[in-house]
């Protein structure tokens, strides 16, 4: 099977966010990341579409996504001062949901910036 090519892909490994990367992939794994630096290449080549991890873990046991979402919602909803933190390695679309989560919970909201 010949590899598929994506032009002008965006690398989110570091703050440079280079958007001129050419990715060669076979839908499971990326084989080449042209124009990417060492760090970017490692970033692209180390991720695959394989199922290496369980969908979810609840109290250390494998769980379904639905169970995990319900457990997460219950724990966060019960807290008096929940914290929403991180948001570096994720998309803006997810970050907006995180801000909405903290707003809805009446909790704390913070990113890596504060470190």
């Amino acid at each position, binding site marked *: 099977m010949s590899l598929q090519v994506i032009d*002008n892909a*965006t690398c989110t490994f570091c703050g440079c966010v280079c*958007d001129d990367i050419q990715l060669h992939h076979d839908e499971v794994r990326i084989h080449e990341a042209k124009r990417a630096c060492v760090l970017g290449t490692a970033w692209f080549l180390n991720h695959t579409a394989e199922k290496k991890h369980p969908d979810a873990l609840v109290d250390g046991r494998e769980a379904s996504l639905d169970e995990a979402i319900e457990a997460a919602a219950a724990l966060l909803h019960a807290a008096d001062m929940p914290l929403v933190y991180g948001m570096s390695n994720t998309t803006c679309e997810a970050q907006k949901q995180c801000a*909405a989560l903290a707003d*809805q919970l009446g909790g704390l909201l913070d990113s890596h910036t504060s470190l």
Partner: protein
Amino acid sequence: MLRITGGKVYDPANGIDGEVRDLAIDDHGRFVESVDGGRTIDATGMIVFPGGVDVHTHVAGGAINFARAMTPEDHRRTQAFIRTKSRRSGLGGMAPTTFATGYLYAGMGWTTVNEAAVPVLSARHTHEELADIPIVDKTSLTLMANNEIMLDQLEQGEYERAKQVVAWYLWAAKSYGVKAVNPGGVAAWKWGKDAKQLASPIEGYKKLTPGGIVTQLARICDDLGLPHPIHLHCNNLGAPGNIATTLDTLKHLEGSRAHIAHSQYHAYGGDGWDTMCSETAQLADYFNTHPNITTDAGAVLFGDTVTITADGPWQHLLYKLTGRKWGNLDVENETGCGIVPYTYRPSNLVNAVQWASGLELLLLIQNPWQVFLSTDHPNGGCFWRYPEIIKLLMSADFRKECTRKLPDKIKGKITLPEVDREYTLYEIAVSMSAGPAKALGLSHKGSLGIGCDADVVIYNQDDDPARMFGHPRYVIKGGEVVIEEGDILETPQGREFLVKPARDPDIDAFMRPRFEECYTMSFENYPVEMERIEHAEIRECISHAP
């Protein structure tokens, strides 16, 4: 479906001046002749206006978001919108958060806003923010007058090509029109210089002058058939004696349509801060004899605000004058912006002249269809203070009372004390709604006519215009009651209007190498994809070529 009965209707777009009329709204949120069923609002004894339209404001994008980060002290003292089960929280103040921006505009009956300064590079960001401003409908204007690829075309006398470049950018930015800020001056600022003379070549160019940019860009907007003409922030903003530049600029616009942004900042006489005075009479005369140009006041209100503008050089001056915080953000190839917190004080002679000048323009320009309510939010004051301006326009006595608080030295520097004109409710409806809607080319806004968007604001009659306009009884957006007696009932998503001007098929090929030379992102990743705009609606371009 909704009926509004018995109210005193002010609908200047249809020449209705305080007649008792009934309105009917269908399920698509438009005015119709009549409806069966649905809610009826009995507006007997109340005043009915079309929803307000803000022709010039800064509510979304890199610059205002920069200002938000710079003013945590203001967020601490300002109005907060507390979270409810269904409604996001927010903060008001000088640079409100996106959610609060929607609540505050709708809360005083404004239902359409025009974000007046978007660099293409941050268009993607601006649209994301606009999507987070609830209730109101939005348009946005793209900053063009310092775009180097376009300036290079004008320098080489390639007008047609320049026009194509503008069209390419507008569609890439998914924008509604063209904003020109300090033509040539921001480009010069990138070398720490400014452009103050319309006839002198700008820094870095041999022939191209600010005047040349103004004339040709205005023509481009007409030739492309944009619904809104060139939206021009003239050179030399805020400087004593800049009336000469402004009048000169206006001459460069003869034969074209144009909207002059925040005229107040461009109507000063004198030759220094000590001698600065109002020259609004001269500027108003020009408008009074040239009915095809419009303007917004850019009025100043005393108090704290944060000034943000693409006019980087002015902001550096303001920073040096005030010694306060200064933010500056230059955007590659396109534009820049500066941010400085500022307090307008009645005791400060310059501020007093500015305060008077904004009101003078609103009062001395005879035709309310030519001059609109604005504070150039947040520069002259925050948009949520518009009701204060309305009161100043409607009451000569109140103006006199306020004028008395100005320093004695103001005598001879302003003409406001001699102006007795008082706006009628009809004229207010023109200035806050029908006029700006018409100038923006939004024919379905600012009107209560059949087929138009059912954006309505209903006031309790009140002797105090500030109270009346600050606290509408009902606000209806697209047929939905969103505000009732100060409570926010619904926070629907507004729409975004944009244009798709005709482009040559080969413009992409022309742009690519130039783009790659100037920019740091991929050509393909630059245009904002249509599916990224929430509730987009493309408005038609109709040629305005003479």
